[in-house]
């Protein structure tokens, strides 16, 4: 019997050491010999506050972001000055604003920086006096001006190390957590051994293997569907219905099939190929190890034999009246639709229809979504400063009024780049060119070159691929996929000074972690998997707890740890991974159908955002799942004769009772039962239970067994397991040998174990990751 040992998360000495371990070790900088049990060296905490940190905490948060930016923003009253600040909606806003203030601070009048003179009203300032001379805000500016002349850089760790005292889960737990997320299975013993030996580099090595499994690509498609929402068209012939009959006269080619059943099957297969084009492209690019930006730049789409026939593309083995099941609907090949300039998923029908346009929207919605999904920029947030309609009296305000141009200068050029695709997603280059009253098609300051108008989206895709924000967007997507949360925003509007400081510290930490992940992405020629690995070993996934710290630092740690409620899809797969059986009813996965919306899931159509915290209804659904799955899985596991082959009960038999007929403890049985409880905690919850937890679970088993045993003896309960839970046949439906059938339960152990399983399956550690 193993010695009971409480799970003790490892504590990080510092942010830099703790987080850098994986990447640095992989790069060889740490000699790659450290194991997870070795103490990490305590670096010297200097008490130093760098100029950047001072700017962030003492100037940006309390002064600039609340006071100055009201006018000094791209559409504000001071938009034409040299002092224009970026809002937190802009990627890299802190660095950009630091650069701006550095430039402005250099201007002096009689030896004093204008940064001090203007806001105090000592020289002409359009906004008048904004801060008190010699007040604390002024003093902060004085300090900053001095520091800008002689910047303070901190060697090693700054005084306030945000990650000091954070505890991390064991490396094998990291593997379990990420493995369940990405490939919906538990690690094998050999994979765990690899991690035990190699630590976090071992996690990355195993992940490399896991990310070749088909389940990973299913998960990848799920992740990107949360952005693209194109699964809306997966059912029936919804995707085919989007296609223009004139462009694709063969779009319902399957109607020629006389057999209705086969015809329906062909229609479904064709539809799925069309509906899945963007998601399959994402999976294909990653699977083939191509630069990830190919999801936008690909000059092809993916076709199956069924969709190729619809598109009229040759080179595929067309269905010719034989058995449609002989054709693999998932055998996809790169191919081009004649006459259509492809730009990866951007030119797929389902993408263009999922994000449609109108005559007056003129592709702005499409532009906004591309910015959001692939450039990590929420354009609408650029305009969240108050606008005044009485100021909007211009002709064509989206071109000329600052209240409008703040967004439109960004989205309109890209909207123009979509000019060749009409509201139905058809390729229809405008005969008269793009709208003259809008900014010319382009991206940022660049304009679509003359002669490239007919394939402007392809040009745009290349621009996006080269943009630093594309990497940021990939990192954001992976971060959300692994942690279940959106990245922290650097916006501090409305926060108290203390909360603003904490928010910015959290933001800075995130920027550091994300920056490292981005670097790996760029250095690996846009390898998507590199980002997954970087994020998998980041503190956001690994953090488990923290030593007692002051409240403000606790707030700055608000985004650490993966305490996110599993989505219906993730929970559905975890149930199978742990118990070996799906939670189904009438052959349909319950969480993916009946309870999908109740449990916070999406349908990619009318419900497109997930609920990420449980409510009363979801809690009851989890309880029902625990009831039904314990009813199903416990008997089935006991059907297996060889204990070593059992997933749930390798240490006990149904005959193992904790007490004899006289109420005396049966030591051997109790030890085995506790061993099995420990095994269940590890398998179901991924934890090594402490003695307290072990005892609590054992007490549940023991008291349930005592109650049931007495009730059976008294005739108050049947000796038989409820007929809905009995298991008397094997997987093929053949009757099992009598000894392996689970029907009678005189000892009441089967039902006591059901209580234990229900307890664990409805636990925080199972429902959350």
């Amino acid at each position: 019997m193993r010695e009971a040992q409480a799970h003790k998360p490892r504590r990080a000495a510092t942010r830099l050491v703790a987080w850098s371990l994986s990447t640095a070790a992989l790069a060889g900088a740490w000699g790659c010999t450290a194991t997870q049990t070795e103490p990490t060296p305590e670096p010297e905490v200097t008490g130093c506050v760098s100029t950047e940190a001072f700017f962030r905490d003492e100037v940006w948060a309390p002064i600039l972001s609340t006071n100055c930016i009201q006018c000094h923003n791209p559409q504000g009253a001071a938009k034409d000055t040299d002092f224009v600040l970026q809002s937190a909606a802009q990627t890299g806003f802190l660095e950009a604003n630091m650069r701006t203030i550095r430039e402005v601070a250099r201007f002096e009048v009689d030896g004093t920086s204008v940064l001090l003179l203007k806001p105090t009203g000592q020289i002409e300032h359009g906004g008048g006096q904004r801060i008190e001379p010699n007040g604390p805000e002024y003093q902060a500016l004085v300090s900053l001006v001095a520091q800008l002349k002689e910047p303070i850089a901190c060697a090693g760790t700054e005084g306030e190390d945000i990650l000091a005292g954070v505890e991390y889960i064991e490396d094998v737990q990291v593997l379990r957590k990420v493995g369940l997320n990405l490939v919906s299975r538990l690690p094998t013993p050999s994979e765990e051994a690899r991690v035990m030996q190699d630590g976090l580099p071992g996690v990355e090595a195993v992940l490399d293997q896991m990310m070749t499994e088909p389940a990973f690509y299913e998960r990848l498609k799920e992740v990107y569907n949360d952005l693209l929402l194109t699964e809306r068209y997966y059912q029936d012939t919804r995707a085919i219905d989007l296609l223009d009959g004139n462009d694709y006269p063969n779009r319902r080619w399957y109607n020629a099939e006389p057999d209705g059943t086969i015809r329906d099957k062909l229609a479904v297969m064709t539809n799925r190929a069309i509906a899945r084009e963007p998601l399959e492209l994402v999976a294909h690019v990653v699977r083939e190890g191509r630069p990830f930006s190919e999801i936008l730049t690909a000059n092809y789409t993916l076709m199956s034999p069924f969709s190729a026939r619809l598109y009229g593309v040759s080179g595929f083995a067309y269905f010719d009246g034989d058995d449609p099941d002989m054709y693999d609907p998932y055998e996809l090949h790169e191919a081009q639709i004649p006459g259509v300039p492809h730009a990866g998923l951007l030119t797929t029908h389902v993408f263009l229809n999922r994000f449609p346009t109108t005559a007056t929207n003129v592709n702005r919605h499409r532009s906004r979504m591309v910015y959001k999904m692939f450039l990590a920029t929420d354009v609408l947030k650029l305009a969240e400063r108050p606008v005044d309609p009485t100021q909007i009296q211009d002709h064509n305000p989206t071109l000329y009024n600052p209240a409008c141009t703040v967004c439109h200068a960004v989205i309109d050029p890209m909207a123009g780049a979509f000019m060749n695709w009409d509201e139905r997603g058809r390729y229809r280059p405008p005969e008269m060119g793009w709208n003259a009253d809008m900014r010319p098609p382009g991206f940022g300051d660049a304009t679509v070159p003359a002669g490239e108008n007919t394939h402007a989206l392809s040009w745009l895709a290349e621009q996006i691929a080269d943009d630093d924000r594309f990497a940021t967007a990939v990192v954001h997507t992976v971060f959300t996929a692994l942690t279940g949360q959106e990245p922290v925003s650097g916006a501090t509007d409305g926060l108290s000074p203390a909360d603003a400081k904490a928010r910015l510290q959290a933001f800075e930490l995130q920027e550091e972690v994300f920056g490292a992940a981005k670097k790996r992405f760029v250095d690996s020629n846009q390898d998507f998997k590199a980002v997954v690995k970087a994020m998998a070993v980041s503190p956001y996934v690994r953090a488990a707890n923290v030593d007692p710290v002051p409240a403000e630092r606790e707030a700055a740690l608000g985004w650490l740890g993966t305490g996110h409620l599993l989505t219906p899809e993730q929970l559905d797969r975890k149930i199978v991974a742990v118990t070996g059986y799906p939670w189904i009813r009438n052959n349909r996965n319950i969480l993916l159908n009946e309870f999908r919306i109740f449990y916070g899931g999406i349908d990619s159509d009318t419900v497109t955002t997930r609920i990420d915290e449980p409510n009363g209804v979801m809690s009851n659904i989890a309880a029902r799942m625990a009831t039904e799955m314990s009813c199903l899985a416990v008997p089935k596991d006991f059907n297996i004769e060889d204990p070593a082959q059992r997933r749930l009960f390798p240490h006990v038999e149904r005959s193992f009772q904790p007490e004899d007929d006289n109420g005396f403890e049966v030591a051997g049985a109790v030890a085995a039962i506790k061993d099995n409880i420990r095994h269940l905690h590890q398998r179901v919850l991924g934890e090594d239970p402490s003695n307290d937890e072990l005892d609590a679970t054992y007490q549940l088993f023991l008291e349930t067994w005592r109650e049931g045993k007495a009730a059976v003896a008294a005739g108050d309960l049947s000796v038989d397991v409820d007929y809905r839970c009995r298991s008397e046949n094997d997987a093929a439906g053949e009757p099992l040998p009598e000894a392996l059938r689970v029907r009678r339960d005189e000892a009441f152990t089967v039902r006591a174990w059901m209580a234990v399983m229900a307890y664990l399956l409805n636990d925080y550690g199972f429902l959350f990751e």
Partner: protein
Amino acid sequence: MDRRDFLKAAGLAGLGIVSPFGVRTARAQEEGPYTGPFFVLVNAAGGWDPTSLCDPKGRANEEESDPMNYYFTGDIGQAGNIRYAPVAGNQAFFEKHYQKIMVINGVDTTTNGHDSGSRHTWSGRLAEGYPALGAFLSASVAASKPLAFISNGGFDETQGLVAPTRTGDTGSLSRIAYPNRLDPSNEASELFTPATQARLQAAQRARLDRMQERQRLPRLKKAMGALYVARSGENEIQRLTEFMPTDLDRSNNGLIRQAQVALAAYRAGVCASVNLSTGGFDTHGDHDNRHFPSLQRITEGVDFLWEEAARQGIADKLVVVVGSDFGRTPGYNAQNGKDHWSITSMMLMGQGVPGNRVVGSTTDRHRPIALDPTTLAPSEAGVRIKPGHVHRAIRQLAGLTGSSLDRLFPIVEEDLPLLG
């Protein structure tokens, strides 16, 4: 620690169940069904056109070159003190309900972005970080109820105050309500005996207690707290099955079905607020033909809500707020549509709301007219009505002024005597 003790302790600690920058106040509350006011928040998603509803403008004649609306000013209707546009189902709606409607015109959302407009209208603040009105209200009066805040869409950020609930296939409610029954319609089909079930639940609570006690990372602590609260009303959902109509409306007006479910949840005592939401208002082209049917869904949906509430004897409990992201531009664009405009209207109805009342006004071109903060009369030196003013009034109406959540999410706009 039992549920009451937990909620009480958390409430006394002033914190409850934490989020990084928000707080779920777990309040000690009376056991039993919730019977207080029922807050129904009706969202016109996409930005409605108040000039086609309760702030009518019209056109003087057919020769008017840039009309605000295509209907004529002479056709503008009036029910009591409330003027309404002579389109869609407005006449029937206002004639029937004007005595309980308060119209607030000239509300300045200060934005023309959908997300920010919706957030401003329904949280009372333009910037992020405040909960939706429904979350604020339900967290204030019934945070521990299992369906305290039902959301059918619209802005429904909760800031960790209360978990929103979505309603799916209501035919599955009995399977949700009785998780221990293998056959939900059969009382005798419980997998675990009542004693075992109680033991199981006690063990789960105790384990979560132990985990929470050890945990200090806010995100994880918050997640555990959310699960704790979610579990606290497990048995109350059973009452929902008693009140849910067996035959929900299947018409193309989703508001009716949403209202049916919401009323059932309220009658079951498990719900205090609901977001009802319907779209189709973002009519940049062919405005009238596309916008009016959406307005009709709103008026018919709200009418149904009142009719059904009266039939079920709970009309006196309703507080209804109707609003949208923002308004639509004065006049029509080249595609006969209307674009985004930051000036809008809101309507309040129900318990404590002075009906047959119009507050605020706009110019002929739908620009806001400032008003005196004391008399509410037009005043150039006055203030513009903003969503925050309306939220302040609603908080006052709900008796929540000065409450802990009111202090936690203060409204910066001043008090206006909107309610008289």
